[in-house]
């Protein structure tokens, strides 16, 4: 079953793992150098995997140790995973490049925050690649744990008590999520004797065991993805982390557990009638989109506002469940949901990096005191504004493209109810983006403590440009994302 080039999948995971081991053993400055040196390798690997998948039009599979599932473990790259790998390979190096000054290692020594940051950043990369490639539910549990152990220390890297409390709350939610997921895995093994996603997808039936397992796994993944009402850990955690870490956490890490929820419902359970649970997930997503936006409107600090906006944007992602599961317009829903994942990843990473530049330059991030800041930091506010454009869903942006697809899916499947959060959330997003920009574009004189670093501003701008450029994604890009996705009722498209 192993296809030529399948080794690349293992290497995509092993490369950052090797980086972690070397960085930890060597210590000191080596951690940064190794991270930056391996970043292009990771990008090339991701690009090559994507090319192989596109070229063959079929998923790329590698059976580790030459041992086929169910006894062995396989890695499997389909269109969706290859896309996510490329996104990760763009955003993680951008965050790394951005963070070079803040996490520079002192001459001839080793610092706590620098070593932690560089190693954990590589760990997030390794974990995400495994999340996207894993084809065995227990292997994916290990990936989720890697992700948790990498993300939590990043939240409290500056050591203030409120960051420690945020990290602890995050850890407890994440642990609850992992153990709940693992319980579902145990039940599925008890029912079918395999944890391979493809094999399970062929055998699965709508028994109480399967529904209980699905409910437990989904609950765990929702806690990790911070879907309303399990979102309370996210804003303090993402707002308190250093900007480069926030960008990765908000842009990528929450998408990891979301991706597994997609895997579970659309790859493991595709043959089952999932309309009712999908509608429930959609309803939670709709609530999150509205509720998160309203809370974002009320925040006094920019980073908290951006973090609450993540809560809202995660809500849109879950509209994918009812829309992509519908027999009519399912493909539109799938494309729209995926576009939302990509657009949000780039836009949110750019906005967090900009918020970091801003906080560094002004010495604070209180929105009320932004008066006239746009004149002092034009590039940063341009990035914030363009990112906001995508969050609102105005053209030309990936966010607009995503909402356009989702609305067309609503129309095609007759589920007009989901148009309410899509449009309402967009309006509210307009409100909170306006709240950032209005004072900054208005009168006033801000004191700039330190002039912003041009390189950091450009990194953020580059990411937001990608978020906008997604609007011009060609039709065959959406076909690529669908490679290897089982259709409801069996068969692959």
């Amino acid at each position: 079953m192993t296809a030529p080039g399948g080794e690349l999948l293992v290497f995509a995971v092993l490369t950052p793992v090797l980086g972690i081991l070397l960085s930890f053993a060597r210590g000191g400055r080596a951690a940064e150098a190794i991270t930056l040196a391996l970043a292009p390798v990771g990008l090339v690997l991701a690009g090559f995997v994507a090319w192989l998948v596109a070229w063959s039009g079929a998923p790329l599979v590698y059976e580790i140790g030459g041992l086929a599932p169910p006894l062995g473990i396989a890695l499997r790259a389909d269109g969706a995973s290859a896309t996510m790998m490329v996104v990760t390979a763009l955003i993680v190096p951008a965050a790394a490049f951005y963070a070079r000054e803040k996490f520079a290692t002192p001459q001839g020594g080793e610092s706590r925050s620098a070593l932690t940051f560089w190693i954990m950043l590589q760990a997030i990369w390794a974990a995400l690649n495994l999340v996207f490639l894993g084809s065995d539910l227990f292997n994916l549990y290990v990936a989720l744990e890697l992700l948790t152990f990498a993300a939590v220390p990043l939240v409290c890297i500056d050591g203030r008590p409120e960051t420690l409390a945020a990290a602890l709350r995050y850890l407890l939610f994440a642990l609850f999520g992992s153990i709940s997921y693992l319980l579902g895995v145990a039940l599925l093994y008890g029912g079918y004797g395999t944890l391979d996603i493809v094999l399970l997808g062929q055998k699965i039936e709508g028994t109480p065991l399967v529904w209980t397992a699905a409910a437990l796994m989904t609950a765990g993944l929702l806690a990790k993805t911070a879907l309303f009402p399990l979102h309370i850990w996210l804003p303090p955690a993402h707002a308190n982390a250093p900007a480069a870490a926030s960008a990765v956490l908000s842009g990528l890490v929450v998408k990891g557990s979301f991706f597994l929820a997609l895997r579970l419902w659309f790859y493991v359970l595709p043959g089952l009638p999932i309309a009712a649970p999908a509608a429930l997930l959609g309803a939670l997503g709709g609530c999150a989109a509205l509720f998160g936006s309203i809370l974002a409107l009320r925040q006094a600090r920019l980073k908290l506002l951006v973090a609450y906006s993540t809560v809202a944007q995660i809500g849109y992602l879950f509209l994918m469940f009812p829309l992509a599961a519908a027999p009519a317009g399912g493909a539109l829903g799938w494309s729209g949901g995926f576009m939302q994942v990509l657009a949000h990843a780039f836009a949110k990473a750019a906005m967090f990096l900009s918020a970091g530049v801003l906080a560094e330059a002004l010495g604070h991030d209180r929105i009320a005191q932004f008066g006239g800041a746009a004149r002092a930091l034009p590039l940063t506010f341009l990035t914030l504004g363009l990112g906001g454009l995508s969050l609102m869903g105005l053209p030309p942006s990936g966010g607009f493209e995503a909402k356009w697809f989702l609305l067309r899916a609503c129309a095609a499947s007759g589920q007009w109810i989901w148009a309410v959060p899509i449009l309402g959330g967009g309006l509210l997003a307009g409100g909170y983006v306006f709240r950032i920009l209005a004072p900054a574009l208005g009168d006033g004189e801000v004191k700039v403590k330190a002039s912003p670093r041009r390189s950091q501003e450009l990194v953020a701008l580059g990411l937001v440009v990608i978020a906008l450029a997604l609007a011009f994604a060609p039709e065959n890009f959406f076909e690529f994302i669908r490679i290897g996705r089982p259709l409801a009722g069996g068969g692959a498209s």
Partner: protein
Amino acid sequence: MTPSVLAGLVGAALVGLGLYGLISNPHPLRKLLAFNLVGSGVFLVFGIVARRGAAAGFAFDPVPQAMVITGIVVAFAASALAVALILRLAAASGKVTLDPRAWTKPGEGGQ
């Protein structure tokens, strides 16, 4: 009732007890204890799955048992990280509460 069914019921009870403690107990160290109870309940479910899978001359299916061994080590690592956070939090602030209200100071900004 076979031992494995009994152990499965014990596992279910442990998960329930732990979940209750995890939600209702405000002290983070007690939450951690409760999390470990949930964990061992989940491992017991793996255990009965393994025992039921006795076949081909094995008294158990080795795959779930191996997963439990991996899981126990990961759960311990998680406990250690949580303990480190709790102790540091208590030392730095004199508080070990997770109540978000204890940590938000209105109007507070900056990095």
